[in-house]
């Protein structure tokens, strides 16, 4: 260990470069993990945070709230399914809004519900739940308590919506990377009519359903799907996970992570292999004067642990401030489990990559010190 540390102290640039490279790779992996999590949360946070245990889309909606339309006949079929304690309409649209007196118009997704227990977020981070028309819970980031929001029509005016006041906030409750408001059904209907003066009947996008006591949401979803081929009922978390695009985002990132997972051990493996080759004469000499090969291998592994550990420390130190940032509407966060999993994985892969170097050390024949072969 003493030798390993001394060598690292004397070759600061060499080891420093490797630690920096590993640190940057760790930063890249963790940053991408944070972007993936933030991106997915910004896409489907509202579905995860709304309170209905089961969401019933129309099959045509392709599991997109805004794309789904529940016809009166389908609504009737859903409501008549056995095992439902209560059900309520949920509507969703994305609108151009004016927040407070901002000069710039902005986007907002508005989710309307007929029953607050089946649509409004069940956990608020600030303020209170909406109690009446003209009040809403807003997503954070995106809104502040006290904000007033006006839905704009095609001519820039708002036709009869009045103002929606944000009275509470729910963390990570965005939909489609858009600031989101949760309000009563009448507020939603007024918003749709304000945006489109030609709008006909305003039908729900989905039906929120709660099962009777003792019935699992998944079992209720199955019953509803059995009752109608037009219905696409999903428990809340499944509805979020199976939203279009989520699986593709995960899949794409997994390929990137796999490649990074290969690059890190290859970089460290290459480094230690070259170092071992460079030191082969000294290592042979050490073996000739009595140093056990186990000791030399332990020294090598100790250096690997220090390099990967140093890289992890550098990467995590750079990741910490980055994880507090926002990329547009995407909020990043420090993911402890991702840090732990990647630390263990990279350390394991790093040690594995040093096996080739370790084998070379083990193969050193002390007799070569007397023949001059060790230096080759």
């Amino acid at each position, binding site marked *: 260990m003493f030798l390993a540390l001394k060598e690292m102290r004397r070759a600061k640039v060499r080891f420093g*470069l490797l630690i920096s490279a590993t640190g940057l790779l760790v930063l890249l992996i963790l940053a*991408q993990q944070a972007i993936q999590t933030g991106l997915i949360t910004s896409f489907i946070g509202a579905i995860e945070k709304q309170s209905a245990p089961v969401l019933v889309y129309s099959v045509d909606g392709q599991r997109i709230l805004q794309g789904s*339309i529940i016809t009166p006949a389908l609504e009737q079929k859903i409501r008549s399914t056995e095992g439902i304690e209560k059900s309520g309409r949920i509507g969703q649209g994305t609108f151009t809004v004016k927040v407070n007196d901002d000069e710039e118009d902005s986007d907002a997704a508005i989710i309307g519900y007929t029953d607050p227990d089946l649509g409004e977020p069940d956990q608020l981070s600030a303020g209170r739940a909406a109690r009446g028309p003209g009040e809403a819970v807003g997503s954070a980031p995106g809104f502040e308590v006290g904000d007033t929001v006006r839905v704009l029509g*095609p001519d820039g005016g708002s036709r009869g919506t009045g103002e929606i006041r944000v009275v509470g906030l729910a963390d990570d409750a965005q939909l489609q990377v858009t600031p989101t408001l949760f309000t009563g059904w009448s507020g939603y209907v007024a918003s749709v009519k304000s945006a489109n003066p030609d709008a006909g009947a305003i039908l729900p996008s989905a039906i929120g359903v709660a099962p009777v006591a003792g019935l699992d949401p998944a079992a209720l979803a199955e019953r509803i799907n059995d009752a109608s081929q037009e219905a696409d009922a999903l428990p809340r978390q499944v509805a979020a996970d199976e939203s279009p*695009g989520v699986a593709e985002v995960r899949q794409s990132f997994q390929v990137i992570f796999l490649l990074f997972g290969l690059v890190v051990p290859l970089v460290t493996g290459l480094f230690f292999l070259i170092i071992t080759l460079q030191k082969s004469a000294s290592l042979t000499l050490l073996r000739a004067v009595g140093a056990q090969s186990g000791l030399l291998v332990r020294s090598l592994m100790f250096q690997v642990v220090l390099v990967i550990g140093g890289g992890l420390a550098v990467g995590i130190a750079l990741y910490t401030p980055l994880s507090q940032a926002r*990329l547009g509407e995407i909020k990043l966060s420090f993911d402890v489990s991702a840090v732990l999993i990647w630390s263990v994985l990279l350390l394991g892969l790093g040690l594995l990559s040093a096996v080739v170097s370790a084998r070379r050390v083990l193969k050193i024949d002390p007799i070569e010190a007397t023949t001059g072969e060790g230096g080759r």
Partner: protein
Amino acid sequence: MSLSLKELRRRPGRFGVATVILTLIAILLMFLGGLLDGLTAGNTGAIRAQQADLIVYSSTSQDSLVRSRIEPEQEKQVAAVEGVSGVGELGSVQLGARIDGKGPRDLVPVVLFGYQAASEGLPEPPTRPGEAWADATLKAEGVEQGDTVRVGPARSTIKVLGFVDDTRYAGQSTLWASLRTWRMVQNENRPDARVTPGISQALVVQSSPDASGLAGRIDEATDGFTSSLTESEAIDALPGVAAQESVFNQIIGLTVLIAIIVVALFFALITVERIGLYGVLKALGAGSGRLFAGVLLQAVIVTAIACAIGALAALALDAVVPAGSIPFTATGARLVDSTVFLLVAALIGCAFSLRRVLRVDPAQAIGGGQ
């Protein structure tokens, strides 16, 4: 030069691991670029297919097609602006399509467009209601020329007349119909988004050759009711496109940085190993420039091999990825860009070894340093 080439030929193993690492980085870089290009192509095809000089939205739509609403009055105002040579209406609706042979729950997400103006990317709009051109990606879903698909909860029937290429929108396949068909389908399936005759979502504007400042003049003529964008501005305004490009470009930039570090690390070590040899060569009259040029040449060759393998892997991936799975496209421009990035990274990485080469003292090679 010949010495460095000889070393590469005689001791390829020495450069093998660096080549493998750089190959992985090249694959990563080209995969990231291909993914970005695939995602962008799948999101923007419909806009690019218009080959419009300008696309005009209503000003309160935040340049979102689905939220935009253009009334006949504004269309007339736009058409009357000097420099406008053609105006076509455009409308869209996103729905699920039922295709024969698929199960009752196995719908294909499509965007049905209503359009007026043909372009190089789009033939003349179908004349009969209920007919449409389909994006070629629908072939992978089993759709053939002459088939009828049923869209939306109202099961509006659309007969496919033929196929058009590269017209995907929002990552979905598209159907291209007349404005009349679009209004019919929209009103049958989305009563909340109903449109009356004459209403469209956007205008596709062609301009005469000398129509500079046309966008501003159009918006002025409509009294600020419209927001006129060039094609590239309209693409950037699509949800997520600009953010997606920004995130991917940052990752690509950092990957290039890693390539610089890997090359720097590897060739620094190689140089350290060769210090003695360089001393001898210098003592025999070789200049530092010549020695460093040899290092550069080796770095360029190793990187070029890595890039070639990376490009082949990217092309192979592009060929085997089934339509509709990973949005990956390997374009020549992207592969060339990535290769150039990595070659520049190799040169920069190598530059870190320059100092060591310059510092080699020939006297040490003949014992002067002792």
